[in-house]
């Protein structure tokens, strides 16, 4: 993975820059020592490591604004970081960039139950929001599996998802407002406690922009009353095709489950060996279908789903009888990543999305690739919304195996695009999938996205080297090639 060449003139000024930033963020807010910087050299994508020029830990919006103003004036690159759980290298440092760590923004500013929202600082963890409001019977819906650690600021940057997206949406569908700082230090607020805003939807644009457009300093999220009850079904099938048919049949019946997860045989075996959730081992595919909502509705729908599953040829079918059993059904799924981790020294987690009905085809092709590369793969799948997480098992100590795993991963993502899907469903492009962007977008598409970047950050100082395979200067992107059109265009009806 080639990152932009470090700017030697910036690296030579390291001490001078540190001094200037200490004026803004006094005390221990600027970290320079190699030993301390080691903590920051990587995020959740540990295959890549790079210590930053220095780490800066501001505590106030004013400080963030001043740090960015200074960096903008001096032409210093900035990589924002929340909790550092990105699986795509979104917070991977650069040798000539300061790492702007937002961890000290860890306060819940306000919970407003009457307006069903919470105003929080970006360093508050995803689960921290739910913890703050669950006493009153509320929760924050998006639940990425890193929710115990990941920050809401990072969730905004990545548009984080989770297992309940089908019914409750991604981060972008659960935000009401943000405060953010542009690279030139301008502090802006989009949205608030009301719905929709006049002008362009910059709140929506910022969500999922992977730290390339601005630094989020406050987030207003929608909180929801907890569903009255939730029950789950555990359904085993003799083929992924029949499991896929069952998913389609459930949706065709007008049922939108709170969660609908699928695991393939290697993933089932790994999970069962790890947590003893009672998963059947004689099936090729396992579905967990969770219904949540009012008691009467859940009871009614459980019966319906059960009947649909039978029609689709489920060979095992269990309904959770109590909360403990429901949690047990989920325990295996939630532990799937570490469970696979026990089978292999290293694994590489992919994140493509496909139209659901392409699943059998994609799984078949993946098995062929697995043979071709000589690497095992286990699959967990957000079946409701088509988000696939193949876990490629490899051993980084074997020379060339990491590269092989990466090639395998690329082939899977290219396949996702080929069947009508996308490169990433919830982990982000980051550095990981950056060079695959042309698989999905042509040059004009990518340049139009880069022009959005130009409107926010014309010097390309914020998180460079992420998302886009090529950097273009904004002046070049702004040029137009107008062919002095000669009328007529005979094909177009004119009146």
């Amino acid at each position, binding site marked *: 993975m080639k990152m932009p060449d470090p700017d030697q003139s910036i690296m030579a000024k390291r001490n001078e820059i540190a001094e200037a930033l200490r004026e803004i963020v006094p005390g221990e807010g600027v970290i320079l020592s190699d030993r301390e910087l080691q903590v920051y050299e990587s995020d959740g994508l540990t295959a890549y490591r790079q210590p930053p020029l220095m780490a800066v830990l501001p505590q106030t919006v004013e400080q963030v604004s001043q740090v960015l103003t200074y960096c903008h004036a001096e032409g210093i690159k900035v990589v924002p970081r929340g909790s550092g759980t990105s699986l795509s290298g979104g917070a991977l440092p650069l040798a000539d960039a300061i790492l702007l760590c937002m961890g000290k923004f860890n306060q819940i500013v306000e919970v*407003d*139950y*009457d*307006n*069903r929202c919470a105003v929080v600082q970006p360093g508050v963890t995803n689960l921290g929001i739910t913890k703050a409001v669950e006493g009153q*019977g509320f929760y924050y819906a998006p639940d990425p599996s890193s929710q115990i650690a990941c920050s809401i600021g990072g969730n905004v940057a990545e548009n984080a998802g989770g297992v309940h*997206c089908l019914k409750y949406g991604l981060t*972008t*569908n659960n935000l009401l407002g943000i405060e953010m700082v*542009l690279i030139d230090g301008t*502090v802006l607020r989009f949205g*608030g406690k*009301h*719905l*929709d*805003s006049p*002008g362009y*939807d*910059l709140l*929506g*644009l910022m969500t999922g922009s992977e730290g390339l457009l601005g630094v989020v300093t406050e987030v207003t999220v929608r909180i929801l*009353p907890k569903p009255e009850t939730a029950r789950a079904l555990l359904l085993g099938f003799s083929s992924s095709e029949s499991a896929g048919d069952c998913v*389609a*049949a459930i949706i065709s019946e007008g049922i*939108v489950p709170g969660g609908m997860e699928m695991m393939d045989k290697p993933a089932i075996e790994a999970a069962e060996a790890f947590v003893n959730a009672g998963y059947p081992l004689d099936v090729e595919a396992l579905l967990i279908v969770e219904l949540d909502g*009012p008691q*009467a*509705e859940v009871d*009614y729908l459980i019966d319906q789903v059960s009947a649909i599953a039978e029609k689709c040829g489920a060979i095992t079918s269990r309904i959770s009888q109590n909360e403990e059993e429901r949690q047990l059904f989920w325990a295996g799924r939630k532990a799937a990543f570490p469970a696979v981790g026990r089978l292999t020294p290293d694994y590489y987690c992919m994140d493509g999305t496909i*139209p*659901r*009905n392409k699943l059998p085809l994609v799984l078949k092709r993946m098995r062929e690739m697995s043979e071709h590369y000589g690497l095992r793969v286990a699959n967990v799948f957000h079946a409701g*919304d*088509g*988000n696939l997480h193949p876990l490629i098992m490899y051993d980084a100590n074997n020379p060339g195996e990491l590269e092989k795993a990466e090639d395998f991963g690329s082939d899977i993502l290219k396949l996702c695009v080929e069947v*009508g*899907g996308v490169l*990433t*469903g919830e*982990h982000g492009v980051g550095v990981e*999938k950056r060079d695959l962007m042309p698989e*999905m*977008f042509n040059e*004009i*598409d*990518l340049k*139009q996205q880069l*022009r*959005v970047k*130009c*409107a926010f950050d014309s010097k390309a100082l914020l998180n460079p080297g992420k*998302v886009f395979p090529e950097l273009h200067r904004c002046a070049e*992107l702004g040029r*137009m090639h107008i062919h002095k*059109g000669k009328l007529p*265009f005979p*094909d*177009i*009806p*004119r009146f």
Partner: protein
Amino acid sequence: MSHIKPENAGQLEEAVKWGLSQEESMEIIGSGSKQKLGRAVCADHLLDVSALTGITLYEPEELVLSARAGTSLIEIQEELAKNNQYMAFEPMDYGALLKGTPDAGTLGGMVACNLSGPRRLKAGAARDHFLGFSGVSGRGETFKSGGRVVKNVTGYDLMKLMAGSYGTLAVMSDITIKVLPAPLEEKSYVLYGLSDEQANRAMSVALNSSREVSSAAHIPQIISSKLSLEAEERAMTLLRLEGHGPSITYRTDKLTSLLTGFGKGSLIADPESRSLWQKLRDAEVLLKSEERSIWRISLPPAQGSAFIDSLKFNEQAEYYYDWAGGLIWLSLTGDHNASLLRGRLKSAGGHATLVRSATGIEDAESPQQPLEPGEYALMKRIKDNFDPKAILNPGRLYADL
């Protein structure tokens, strides 16, 4: 002025390229249902996308539909209904309000204006169901963004930028949306005779419970008397329950005991319930007020009644609340109320949009709430990057956008 009506995406690109080469601007139009909404465009040509029609992909079990931008919403809704599906955000029909006759308009117009109805409270806005598009920027280039799957974080979310941009950044040719199973039944739980303040609290109590209320509106007496529902002359507070029959019955019982403090409620069943919500969605109840201006005000829901109270009208204001108090439809005499409304909103937060002017929108105050300078400057830079010569719907949103 010429009226250019491309018949396919290729011709659409040619048309914009031609406009660009002449440096002549174009007003984008589908069915024209919302032409009177917002600022008027003074363009050199009319770019008519109403010939770009047809559903190009609909896979009910995948919950996805793609169609050309000029496809009529009615056609899409009819196709979805065959499979018991719908657009959950409930696009509103501005036709009655702006043209005097219903006109749901086109898919492109709906997305470009980000229109959503009462169910926006629970289901999100049009923008939340907008998965992908292809269109031509003001640079005369065809580009695409997004895809046909819901979970997608590949690149910037340009769908959000297009939704609500009123055609000022690009003219869309193809659009993909997420569709959902339609509820089998709906009923409305009604409380009678509440004051605005009591109603605001009742809606909050209902919404804060796990009864899954999908829409909540309060109709003061002056409006409810126009609804011609069994000659009802009292204020009505409506809570909409949708889904499977047993679930609705169960939730109705729970709501009844939850809301006993607000008086005795009753139930309105289908088809009255549906028709009532449609009237509220399309602001039909304000229709008879011809010489009046109509405002749409979005604010934090719990502040709804306090906001109305703070206005201290000298006249008989007509208004009702949707979105549990977070949306106020307000009809006033004359046009010069912008500074009053927007001034009062400063403390509550939110924005006021002039939907229909009493005297002609050209003379009225800015229909969209003015923006902070930093935000406006950023939007202008975005506009410049999509449409550097300002040839697409110039001035439709604000003077420079």
